[in-house]
């Protein structure tokens, strides 16, 4: 059973308590929500990096595209 440490500042008590079923369900729901948000962020990051890599590869084959990308301030080193 997951447990949490409760630090009661008013009394100074520090107590480990096992999560009750409602708290355990909330813990899992909270983690799932955060994991979904993190996956969305990481997918966006991967997509951006892939787009930059593709741009760099195309620019290597096309001097004109390289000039346009440079003028727009877009990275051409795959970063």
């Amino acid at each position, binding site marked *: 059973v997951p447990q949490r440490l409760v630090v009661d*500042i008013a009394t100074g008590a520090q107590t480990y308590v096992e999560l009750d079923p409602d708290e355990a369900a909330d813990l899992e729901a909270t983690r799932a929500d955060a994991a979904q948000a993190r996956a969305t962020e990481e997918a966006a*990051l991967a997509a951006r990096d892939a787009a930059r890599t593709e741009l760099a590869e195309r620019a290597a084959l096309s001097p004109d595209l390289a000039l346009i990308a440079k003028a727009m301030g877009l990275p051409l080193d795959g970063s």
Partner: protein
Amino acid sequence: MSFITVAPGQTITASWGNTVRDQLVSPFASASARTSAISALVEGMLSYRSDEKVFEGYNGTSWLPVGWIPIASTTLGSAAASVTFNSIPATYKNLVVVALAKSAPATNFEDILLRFNNDSGTNYANINVTADNTGGAPALLSGSSQTSAPILRMPSSNLNSTIFGGGFAFVLGYSNSSMSNKNVFSLSGNGDWGNVGQFRMRGCSWGAGGGSFTASAVTRIDLISGNGNFVTNSSFQLYGFGA
């Protein structure tokens, strides 16, 4: 009060001695002991209270804490999924949350999720600046309508077992009961040389993303491991500043 400079041949008088006393940091067991001991307060006086482990300065009206004031501190003696700071006093204007932690799952990094006043509604939004040493440029990411704020990043068990990480987060205006939102800003992460390193700069707002905009002070903070447990020896501190 003139500032005392000791000259050769200085005659020690009661007035001179008392002036020197008032320009030093005076230790007291408690505020009441200080009140009993000092008959004439002078603006700018400094004292130390051993009951609260805090330096305080007199501003001409009242004694105020100086610097970051320790509110609570804990180091896990056994693994836990979360840590709750309860009954946070409204003594200060702002808080600093410090975490030096590690999570148990066999991953590289996990987030420490922050929750205020046990509010599990979709009332948290965050903006996240990332820097990883595993390739890719720093990125700006964001999320909203979340049920917690991924405010700090810590290493997990794929990194060396003795590597801990984390960071600190400023909670601005936590004790202000007339503000409907609370903003948090943090720096966190860890570098594991030759393997993977991640750093994060984050901003989070509670109550601003679809929230009820109910003005309230923060009296409880939960720090939740985003995956698995915080391992033994993970440590967490709470400081207050601004009176």
